[in-house]
């Protein structure tokens, strides 16, 4: 019995050894397989491109932010979230239209989520707050809407690509148009009291006065304005027109009170594009009809590219596209064109920014766009009149200024020597 046990023991030992050998062998093979397979996978599929996106999704500017996001989502759906052979992964954050929050969220996107690229934001104040941080982190970022003049003038950033416009850009030609075509001589301006308002009014006033017009009164209403009565009461009825810049809730209320004060139909209303932009136009009534504004886009723009965009946007979101929606559809198209041109290589960020500035995406809803030497788009400016067509209000384009630069007809060097538009 004892001998048998001895043999059994040696057998058990040897079988243990073979088991161990087999196990080690299997381990070695599987490790080798993993390595080979891993190499094959990494050669085949690159990790997704992460795009960080910032817009206000809560608070007073949430609707504008939502439109911007919708435009981007629409384009990403069109291309199936793929570009340059890689998947596009979108990470959205709410900046609440507060600069400090925007900065915190940008830090989160860049430092925690490790995004390759950034896009978005609405307000100039957030745009200015982000710029130094974006520069320090060297992350390419597209600003589709932020229109603060100096971002492409006196305080340019190497890492920020603006695909939108400057606040004064559509208003330079509009000032001349108001004088020569609309035959206006004396205008009162009323606008929201912040940088966007000053730059819009400033641009209009510069060319309008240069042609020979005069500004009767310059009225600034606080951003939190709730009642326009005191402002409207002070407007002289002798002026040829009132120039207005409002957006969102303030635009709706201004239009309504303009009519209540008997000004509608008596003193023509003109203004900056956002005042009658499609983000508020469907909520307006007949009081808006006849208002003439200038912008680089109109939802009613009669081009094949825009008709297609407006139709798909309407089918997807059940409303007309606003300029905010178009801005990030175009901005998204630009970003994707850049990724395609770079062959999906967004890791070389310095090269990618150069590519982004060099690409020329075609068939944009707003018309042809190219960059000037300062990184701001040269694009068409449309003069639009609010009309009711098929029961719906729209911004009918009545005149087009082709290829308008942020400097209009002025020499950039001379232009930049003058101070930024202020109140």
């Amino acid at each position, binding site marked *: 019995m004892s001998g048998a046990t001895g043999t059994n023991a040696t057998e058990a030992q040897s079988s243990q050894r073979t088991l161990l050998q087999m196990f080690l062998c299997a381990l070695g093979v599987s490790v080798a397989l993993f390595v080979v397979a891993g190499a094959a996978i990494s050669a085949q599929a690159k990790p997704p491109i992460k795009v960080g996106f910032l817009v206000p999704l809560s608070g007073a500017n949430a609707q504008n932010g939502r439109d911007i996001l919708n435009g981007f989502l629409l384009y990403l759906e069109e291309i199936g979230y793929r570009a340059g052979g890689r998947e596009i992964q979108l990470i959205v954050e709410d900046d609440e239209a507060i600069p400090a929050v925007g900065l915190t969220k940008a830090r989160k996107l860049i430092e925690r989520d490790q995004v390759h690229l950034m896009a978005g934001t609405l307000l100039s104040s957030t745009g200015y707050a982000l710029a130094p941080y974006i520069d320090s982190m060297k992350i390419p970022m597209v600003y589709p809407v932020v229109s603060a003049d100096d971002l492409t003038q006196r305080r340019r950033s190497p890492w920020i690509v603006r695909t939108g416009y400057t606040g004064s850009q559509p208003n330079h030609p509009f000032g001349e148009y108001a004088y020569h075509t609309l035959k206006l001589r004396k205008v009162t301006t009323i606008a929201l009291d912040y940088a966007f308002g000053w730059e819009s009014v400033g641009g209009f006033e510069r060319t309008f006065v240069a042609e020979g017009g005069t500004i009767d009164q310059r009225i600034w209403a606080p*951003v939190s304005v709730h009642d326009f009565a005191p402002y409207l009461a002070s407007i002289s009825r002798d002026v040829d027109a009132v120039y207005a810049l409002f957006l969102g809730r303030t635009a709706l209320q201004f239009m309504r009170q303009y009519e209540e004060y008997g000004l509608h139909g008596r003193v023509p209303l003109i203004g900056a594009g956002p005042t009658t932009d499609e983000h508020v136009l469907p909520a307006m009534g007949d009081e808006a009809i006849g208002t003439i504004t200038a912008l680089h886009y109109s939802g009613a723009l009669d081009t094949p590219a825009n008709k297609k965009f407006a139709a798909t946007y309407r089918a997807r979101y059940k409303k007309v596209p606003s300029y905010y929606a178009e801005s990030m559809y175009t901005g998204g198209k630009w970003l994707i064109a850049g990724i395609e041109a770079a062959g999906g290589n967004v890791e070389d960020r310095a090269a990618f920014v150069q590519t982004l500035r060099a690409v020329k995406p075609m068939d944009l809803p707003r018309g042809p766009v190219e960059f000037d030497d300062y990184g701001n788009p040269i694009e068409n400016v449309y003069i639009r009149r609010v009309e009711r067509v098929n029961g719906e209000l729209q911004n009918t384009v009545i005149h087009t200024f082709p290829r308008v630069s942020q400097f209009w007809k002025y020499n950039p060097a001379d232009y930049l020597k003058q101070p930024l538009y202020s109140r």
Partner: protein
Amino acid sequence: MAERSEALQGWRLPVLVVLGVLLLAGPPLLTSYWVGLLTQAVILAILAMSLDLLLGYTGLPSLGHAAIFGVAAYGVAVLSTRYQLGFWTCVAGGILAGTLLSALLGLIVSHVRDVYFLMITLALGMVLWGLSYRWIPMTGGDNGLSGIPSLEAHAGLPFSGPIAFYYVALFVFAVSGALMAVLVRSPFGLTLCGIRESEPRMRSLGYNTWLHCYLSYVLAGAFASVSGVVWAYYNSFVSPTYLDLTASSELFLMVTLGGPATLIGPVVGAGVIVLLKNVISAYTARWLLILGIVYIVAILAAPKGLWNLRRGRS
């Protein structure tokens, strides 16, 4: 000594030790994003503690405290970007701007109590916000001022980066916190508590209650200014939103949520709010709703603040 042991009874001591270790040793193990959030929490904690001096210890509810903080931040921004002054001048300028301003405003607000104090500080806060918004040549208006040099470079420190900045902020926090802790335990601080409990009685005991309230307001303003200076360097920019009512009421929430008159409570409140805001919003677009529910539950479950939880009997 008796008061201190009472303040740290039960679960509070272990929690405090864990928090302390986390604040001291945590950052090198964290990614820069989390270090950034901790830095924000630490800077805002100084501000929340300074409001606690007023709200918790003196019983003066200020709804304009963020304005003092903002003025100090603007002080740094204006001195460093418009006049390119040196680091210590900017720091001193920022702290002085906020402190002198509260010394001035204190003359107006320290005569009133309760809801009147709330209203008048709210109004003065709005005036200062309006000034930052409208004094465009100096403040840049709505666009704010950006381009404040980084603290490490401006101060000529041999190290830089988020972790270095964090430890600078932590140092300022520790020094300010210690000073405030000494203050509230001093006879002066106890007098403030007495005024909070019954001002007529303190007056009849011969205390100059007006002077105590005034000094409390100025000291709170001075610590708020310290916080504002660090905040300006942290964000490298300032804007009117630092001074607005939303900022002041969020600060109010930090103190009430954490537990007034504890100093540590507001620190916890600041940390909880900074972390909740940023963590929840990363996961859902409905984060405001969740935040609202959390606040309501916290106030219902701990009406005296988180740090005073289960201290009902004392």
